[in-house]
């Protein structure tokens, strides 16, 4: 009991003196704020990538590729693709057709609006039923492509990032003029997506196999039955994955790099901030030697002193964390970035804010430890005599 009373008394005393030591206190707060701000804004990249990619993911969508291959390496013969439509558990569209899309991808190029730098991304050939497979698509202009006519639709981020995606514009692929006939938004996605009719695309590019066959299930619960039927069918050499797993697999390396970079830079900044905090707390403790000595002399325990200094350190770190998180949010939340060709908006989420606070408390504890110990070990007599 007396420990708590002593502890509170010292803490109050410390805080009431904080105004006189405003320089040191501000240094701690700003150091922590910068370290937390940097960590949070860098982690916001990884969070933005995931939010962006997972935003449109649905549990009832399943992606099939040929066994052992992914994306563009996968190759699914037409007969297998058609047979896959008869698997059980697949959702039926309004006109009783199974919601299954056959997709084939070819790389196309575009130039960035600002820099003029050439960028490659896939154009996806897909089946007419794709609007039911991807209900998140909303047309904002023009219309859907028509089979056989070499028509393309492009998402609005394409138009924002690249030249040549306005409705009516043409581009030459395989010596054929392809016309942009529609523009759409795909959920919240900032990624440029370009679709066309799969059969038209494959005949233009002399292809006979699809890259992917994707189905929408009646409900996510049908997945097991669907998978069992797929594996039991000897004619189908396909492997199926939840859309969620597919997307996560695709993003793993990027997320890994971003998070590593975040914690690497965040750690260096934190070391700097902690060193600064140690310095400031030492000078605070030094300037209060006489006070500490007096407290000890009138019977305050050294444990109470240690804990109260530690607590003071944490209390200075906390506003730093809040400030840093707020700055990160103000400067970086929603900022568009496209490292590694993946377009997303940085997302400063509450959980990142929490990470920042823990990070700051860590700096507070480590930074406060040595000064707190010194404060409690001051020899009383010399401390009282100190100038």
């Amino acid at each position: 009991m007396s420990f708590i009373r002593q502890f509170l008394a010292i803490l109050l005393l410390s805080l009431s003196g904080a105004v006189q030591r405003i320089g040191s206190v501000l240094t701690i707060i700003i150091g922590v704020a910068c370290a937390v701000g940097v960590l949070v804004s860098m982690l916001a990249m990884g969070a933005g990538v995931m939010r962006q990619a997972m935003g449109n993911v649905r549990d009832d969508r399943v992606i099939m590729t040929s066994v052992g291959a992914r994306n563009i390496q996968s190759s699914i013969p037409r007969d297998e693709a058609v047979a896959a439509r008869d698997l059980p558990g697949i959702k039926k569209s309004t006109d009783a057709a199974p919601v299954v899309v056959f997709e084939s991808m070819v790389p196309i190029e575009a130039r960035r609006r600002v820099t003029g730098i050439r960028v490659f991304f896939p154009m996806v050939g897909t089946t007419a039923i794709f609007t039911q497979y991807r209900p998140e698509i909303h047309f904002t202009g023009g219309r859907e492509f028509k089979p056989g006519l070499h028509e393309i639709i492009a998402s609005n981020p394409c138009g924002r990032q690249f030249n040549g995606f306005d409705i009516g514009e043409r581009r030459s692929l395989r010596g054929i003029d392809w016309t942009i006939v529609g523009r759409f938004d795909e959920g919240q996605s900032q990624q440029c997506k370009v679709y066309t009719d799969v059969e038209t695309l494959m005949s233009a590019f002399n292809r006979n196999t699809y890259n992917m066959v994707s189905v929408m299930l009646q409900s996510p619960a049908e997945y097991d039955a669907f998978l069992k039927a797929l594996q039991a069918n000897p004619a189908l050499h396909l492997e199926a994955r939840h859309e969620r797993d597919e997307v996560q697999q695709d993003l793993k390396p990027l997320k890994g790099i971003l998070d590593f970079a975040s914690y690497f830079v965040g750690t260096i900044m934190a070391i700097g901030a902690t060193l600064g905090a140690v310095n400031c707390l030492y000078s605070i403790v030094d300037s209060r030697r006489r006070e500490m000595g007096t407290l000890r002399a009138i019977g305050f325990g050294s444990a109470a002193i240690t804990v109260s200094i530690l607590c003071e350190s944490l209390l200075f770190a906390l506003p730093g964390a809040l400030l840093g998180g707020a700055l990160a949010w103000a400067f970086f939340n929603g900022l568009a970035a496209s490292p590694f060709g993946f377009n997303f908006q940085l997302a400063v989420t509450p959980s990142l804010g929490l990470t920042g606070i823990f990070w700051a408390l860590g700096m507070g504890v480590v930074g406060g430890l040595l000064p707190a110990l010194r404060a409690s070990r001051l020899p009383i007599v010399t401390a009282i005599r100190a100038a």
Partner: protein
Amino acid sequence: MRFLPLFWSGIWRKPGRTVLIFFQVSVAFALFGMLQGLKTGVDHAVAAARADLLIVHSRLNFFAASLPSGSIEQIKSAPGVRLVVPVDIFGAHYQEPTEGLGVVAIGLVKDWPLAFTYSIAPNYLAAFQKLRTGTLINDALAKKYGWKVGDRIPLMSNTAQVSGSTNWAFDIVGTFSDSDLGGGRYTILINLAYLDEARALGKGTVQHFNVAISDSKQAATVADEIDRRFANSPGETKTESLQELAQSQMQAIGDMNFLIRAIVAAALVALLFATATMMIQSVRERTLELAVLKTVGFTDRAVFLLILAEALLICIAAAALGLAVATAVLPLAARFVLGLTMPKIVLAMGLAFAVVVALISAAIPAALAGRLKVAAALAGG
């Protein structure tokens, strides 16, 4: 010079504080050096990438698609083209599937090295031309596996031989080094004629052509002209200079520019606060000593400079340590950017920043110290 002991003792008045602030400055500048070094290093590497070397590859897919070998004549006939070399590439591994390396098969036309970024000793080059199964290995590989000239290296690959076997063996005839950014870490060069004869599939096709042009300023024009020749054919091409390739490869880091600047700014602001507080604190504690100095005849100006010099020494020495650490660490990132080293300009920038930080943080305390009224200070003490 005679003030040296004086200001040395000023610095070590509180060793703990000096050491802490020293390391704090070092850490900040190590971070600065790494981030700015990465950014500037990549910019330099892109600028240094050869603009006079073009790569003609399939428009469909850089790695997976191939072009007919016969395209070479049409490329040669484009104006401004100096030399065309057919190239095929495939992946192979040595003993374990994880020990991958890239195999570059080169059509050994006359003067072919002119169209590459490799440096090869003349005797190795001659041996390579002579032995059909010969291979040149890059220095990194030679070091990694301890391979020597004369060794025969067995490799496994997805590319099958006519016999159906997917095992290949090549005789090492020499080594080479590559100055290209995107050249790959572990590569070997082999004879395309031998590969084409021995492989089961893909005969008569190549993955790309290396083209040397006579005027690097004409790169875009020549590239467009080459692509025009293949437009609407099944073997549509896409021609890019090595510089353009490097640029798009390194685009990622270019996009991070704003973030890198923000981080560096945050680190320096935090540092500025820390050093300024430290200097103010230090001057305040030394009021008495500084007053004594003035009493014995030091001018205001001398005291001002004394404080400034202390801050400068700590900041510059600490920044130098930080930048040295960054210089040592940066080559580790060469896994992503081949041949990345610390650009001198970044070191100069870092030291300049250190001076700025020192001057700003010491300006107020040094002015305070300079203006110190002796009588008041001594009385107050």
